[in-house]
């Protein structure tokens, strides 16, 4: 079946064709781009809409296998395509941990019928314990795009060095959750005026920055590739900026909540504001925005972390950390970061594709038809009822947002259409 996207404004910073052109899709691939591409059985009227290369999320938690009460691969990818994601990288902190080819194969199997492409990120160490290397070679053959002990920082510097080197053997890199647990201590929110006033143990920014510094030095000294996850502090961004200037092979991401919210949102003890790294201060929010706009931060990743209501409707200290993020990422970026569509395409599509070395992030003849279409100016109030992920845990419920994904196309198939 032929599918035509008609009258949209193509944003395509990595490609050659852009502007008000039509796109024709055949057999899952783009077969023509231009003013007159011919007829199709199905036509999407994209007049007034913006057409992006499909969004890729470098960081999410799909919870399957093992925690299907929070989310599963089907429910998670349905939420992902609603957020405009055509592909997502899922983290290995499943039960059992995705630290063997067998678990990767299971995830691949469950993902076959999912509306979005699922790229597994395997564990870097067995059981996320930071002690023994996993069989990264085998897992790479099954499609793992990177390795990570996400959420369980690799405490030993020697182990981190070995993991980075071993991953490189198979052309892969480590995606690092940067946190020095001894500095973090008992902390549950950002350390600052707010934690003092609320009487909650604080997480020092040094916990994140000290680990970033260590891993940047490893990357720089040994010429290894490193991807730093969810940067949240001004100081961390400064370290990465300096390392990039020296030619270190580092890329990094930040999440929408780090440029859309600060720790003053924790004042009502609402556990939906609990996330790790924690919501920081206004100066950090400003630095994250600046870092995204000047290219220091390569990508926006959701860190979609769905949780059951019972894990959030509880005392703050006992609540699970994380925010359900697929369905608000694009809106938060348009609302709080920029309405420059080229910049958004870089942060949501082009750079994520480059980081995991996928031939997407571009709209061109013959490429996979992974496309996201959005209404950049539509405003709405985000409600809990509208969330289709199993995880309703969002601190942005009730906020007025701008920018809505209207269509998501994966391999030429229209997998999501807003009503």
């Amino acid at each position, binding site marked *: 079946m032929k599918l035509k996207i008609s009258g949209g404004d193509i944003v395509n910073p990595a490609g050659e064709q852009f502007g008000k052109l039509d796109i024709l899709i055949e057999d899952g691939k783009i077969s023509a781009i231009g003013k007159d591409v011919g007829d199709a059985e199905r036509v999407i009227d994209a007049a007034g809409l913006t057409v992006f290369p499909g969004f890729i999320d470098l960081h999410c938690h799909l919870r399957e296998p093992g925690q299907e009460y929070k989310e599963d691969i089907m429910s998670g990818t349905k939420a992902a395509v609603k957020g405009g994601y055509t592909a997502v990288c899922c983290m290995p902190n499943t039960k059992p941990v995705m630290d063997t080819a067998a678990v990767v194969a299971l995830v691949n199997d469950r993902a076959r019928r999912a509306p979005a492409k699922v790229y597994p990120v395997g564990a870097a160490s067995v059981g996320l314990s930071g002690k023994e290397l996993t069989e990264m070679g085998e897992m790479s053959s099954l499609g793992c795009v990177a390795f990570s002990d996400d959420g369980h920082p690799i405490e030993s510097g020697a182990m981190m060095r070995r993991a980075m080197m071993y991953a490189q053997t198979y052309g892969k890199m480590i995606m690092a959750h940067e946190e020095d647990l001894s500095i973090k201590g008992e902390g549950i929110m950002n350390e600052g005026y707010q934690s003092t006033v609320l*009487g909650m143990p604080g997480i020092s920014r040094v916990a994140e920055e000290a680990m970033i510094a260590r891993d940047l030095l490893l990357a720089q000294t040994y010429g290894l590739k490193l991807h730093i996850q969810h940067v949240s502090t001004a100081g961390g961004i400064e370290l990465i900026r300096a390392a990039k200037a020296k030619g270190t092979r580092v890329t990094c991401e930040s999440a929408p909540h780090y440029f859309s919210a600060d720790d003053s949102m924790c004042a009502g003890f609402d556990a939906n504001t609990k996330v790790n790294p924690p919501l920081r201060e206004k100066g950090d929010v400003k630095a994250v925005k600046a870092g995204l706009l000047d290219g220091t931060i390569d990508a926006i990743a959701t860190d979609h972390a769905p949780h059951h209501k*019972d894990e959030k409707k509880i005392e703050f*200290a006992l609540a699970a950390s994380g925010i359900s993020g697929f369905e608000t990422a694009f809106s938060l970026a348009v609302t709080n970061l920029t309405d420059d569509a080229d910049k958004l395409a870089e942060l949501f599509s082009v750079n994520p594709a480059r980081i995991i070395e996928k031939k997407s992030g571009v709209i061109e003849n013959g490429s996979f038809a992974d496309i996201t279409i959005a209404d950049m100016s539509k405003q709405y109030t985000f409600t809990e009822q509208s969330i289709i992920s199993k995880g309703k845990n969002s601190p942005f419920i009730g906020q007025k947002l701008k920018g809505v994904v209207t269509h998501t196309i994966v391999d030429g198939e229209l997998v999501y259409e807003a009503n």
Partner: protein
Amino acid sequence: MLLQSKDVLGLQYMPSEEISYIIESAATMKELLMQSAKKMPHLQGKSIVSLFYENSTRTRMSFELAGKYLGATVSNLGVSTSSVQKGETLLDTGKTLEAMGTDIVIIRHPLAGAPKFLGDNFSGSVLNAGDGMHEHPTQGLLDMFTMKEKFGELKGLNVTIIGDIMHSRVARSNIWGLTKLGANVTICGMDTMMPCAIERTGVTVSNNLIESVKDADVVMALRIQKERQKGGLLPSNREYHTFFGINDDVIDKCKKGVMIMHPGPVNRGVELSSAVMDADFSVIDTQVTNGVAVRMALLYILTRSKNNEA
């Protein structure tokens, strides 16, 4: 006067008029408390439950007596700290107490924000008797009442709070209440026990005991919890007393008529020397009496607010 909130969670957001009103009412309650027949009908027919997830003798007893003197039915639900993590959730405990017709829940909890969480999910009133490092509003109110009794006025009063400010909900409630009513608050202690950005609350911060007490009208020493030493925040109680303990030498450097306070229980020889603790300028026992009066006043005002709503 009615309180604007059904719950009393802290002094940070309590309007200064409400604070003053509670302190004034406490003075009246203290007169009743001093009578030989301590049974008043103010809270007759009201059901109060105290829900303590942390050990406490004086606060719990103080609330219990305050409720009983005013004729309420007071029951205690003791919960061991371990069941915060296991056992029934606070949400469900709140629902159970509500189903049993409880009007007021008095809660002490090791986690900051637990009373707020309970209050959001319970239709009666919730009174915070101390939550983590957050607030201990009735302690702040009774301390302010005790200061007002002696000095008549809180405005312009110099109050110095000494010790483990970081872990102290007593310090936080006093800081909010006192600064709101115009007192000058200085906090003093070692930097390992100073919370981040505390100066933004409007207090003066010092590491020098003598400097910080020499102009003080009130010196309040906080309890040093035993586990802090194990946690590596201070090397020894001996060194603590040498630099931050209140003894006769320190009293000599203070103004004449200085008042010494402590929320109790005191580690004799650590925060206060025995001689200072037993001297007539220490008002620790008065604080205990005033605690009952303040809690009587607050319980009465809360139930009345509730009645008028209906």
